């Protein structure tokens, strides 16, 4: 079971990292989400794997470690907030640069800068 779990986390991480390295905002966001799944599973598993050991007092004979669960809960919420923000940021990027490339429009910066330079010096 442990090996299976570890492999799953590994696969999630690999997929996430690969997508993180893409050039468009959307895959990056998807990659971040995958990575956060991997991280959450990992963090969760730091309390070790248990079956039917839900940490509800009185519901079972032995309990799994509740602390990582609480931590993961916090991490999920924070991850959600962050994902929401980065999604919106990528929308903003799209609106501002008319492109969903993670670096905005490449090469345009220099051009506008040149024109502005001319405006300032005036001659």
């Amino acid at each position, binding site marked *: 079971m442990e090996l299976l779990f570890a492999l799953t986390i590994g696969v999630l991480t690999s997929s996430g990292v690969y997508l*993180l390295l893409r050039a468009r*905002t959307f895959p*990056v966001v998807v990659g*971040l989400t995958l*990575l*956060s799944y991997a*991280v*959450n599973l*990992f*963090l969760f598993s*730091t309390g070790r794997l248990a079956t039917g050991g839900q940490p509800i007092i009185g519901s079972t004979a032995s309990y799994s470690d509740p*602390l*990582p669960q609480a*931590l993961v809960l*916090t*991490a999920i919420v*924070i*991850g959600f*907030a*962050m994902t929401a*923000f*980065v999604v919106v*940021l*990528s929308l*903003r*990027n799209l609106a*501002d*640069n008319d492109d969903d490339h*993670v*670096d*905005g429009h490449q090469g345009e910066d220099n051009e506008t800068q040149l024109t*502005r*330079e001319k*405006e*300032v*010096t*005036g001659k």
Partner: protein
Amino acid sequence: MNHWLTAPILIPLLGGILQVFMGYAPISLRRTIAIATTVLLLVSTIVLLVLASDDGYRLYAFGNWQPPFGIVLVLDRLAALMLILTAILALFCHLFAIGGADEGNRQFHALFLFQLMGLNIAFLTGDLFNLFVAFEVLLIASYGLLMHGGGTARTVPGLHYVVLNLIGSAVFLISVGMIYSVTGTLNMADLAVKIPRIQGESLNLVKAGGMMLLVVFALKAALIPLCFWLPKAYAKATAPVAALFAVMTKVGIYAILRVYLLVFGDDAGELANLGMDWLFPLALITLTMGVIGALGADNLKTLVAWQVIISVGTLLAPIALGSEAGISAALFYLLSTTWTVAGLFLVAELVANQRGTAGDRIITAPKMRNRTFLSVLFLIGAVAAAGLPPLSGFFAKLLILKSTTPGPEMAWLWSVILIGSFFTVIAYSRAGSIVFWRTVEGHIEKPEPLGGNVSVAAGALVALSVIIVALAGPISDYTDATAAQLFNPDGYLQILEAPVVSEDK
């Protein structure tokens, strides 16, 4: 249990909540209340500074749970120093912001105050996972602040900043998990107790976890090769935000100091001084890269942004060497550089406002209306930043140079810092002489008048470098004591035995 410890967290939190409710209140009212909050915060940090000056550790156990089970705040000299550093910085940035930079976004003050809350939690917390939460609070607020204001230029740098930090957060969680999975605890003091006892294969896990944690902190601190998100992001941010961000990299440095001295300190057995051998060369390369960037900067804000990276390198090098004197020196430098850099960001903004379309770019432009005032501010800031006498930067660097002991590290550190200073001087003199002295005929149609608030804020931050010199004695005494306290973590470990209010809860 001293409730003052929560003040730097609760004051901005409540202030922020108030701002959320007041989204549609008149701007003057919002400003007044926001500034009042920041002033209150400053007052509370002064109280804490006084409290911390007795070399004791003060514990605040949230929920009245005995550490390591509950979350604790721990006040020591280092925390108090960081708190007051931030509070002073925040006050002036805020003062600058209400000069007009806060318009166009009703949430500005709320975000600003939440950011302070996050910073203060980070400085006070004694719990590794809570440190993560604090990081997230301050990061998400900083994302919001970074995107504050109009303009499309900040979107892409903002995106980079956010995405990289999100990856960083993931790594943070992984490393916390790795450490927890072996030690079974999150409280830093408890970790410091447990880590030296680790044996066998678990050691590798904790080691990998600790190293990854260092990467996270290095990302926040903007250490090479993780620093390239910074210059553009800071340079494009609104001035008071960029100025406030001067302290953001210091959070990473604070975290390194806190965690790596306490948890992976000299007493950590096989894991003692984990990662410090990586840190030193990287710090020097960071410094070098910062100088190169500063030399190549084509506008003032970018120049200052690279200065942030220079200070990171300068700070981390002595920290990595890990001598008590070095850390005291680094703390002194931290104080000086944070305020100076922030002041320079504000000055750059004032300059940009008076140069029309030229903005803060290092090109010829019509003469500024308040050239003398601004050039004096810039001069003071540049001198302090470059580390020339008689301002604080010089004394700080002097302390750092003096703190090293002869050996190859000293040779490296000295040459990099001094040669770096040399090129920084060239960069600043070049930028300053072009921006302030090389003017063309004509004048800007409608130069923005120089507001009172903004002048005071920028002036005060820059002038702090003078005040640091005047108070150099007491300040260096304080940093010495702080470093001594950091090197004697036994006191910190005592918090584990500290009693909570009463047991019969």
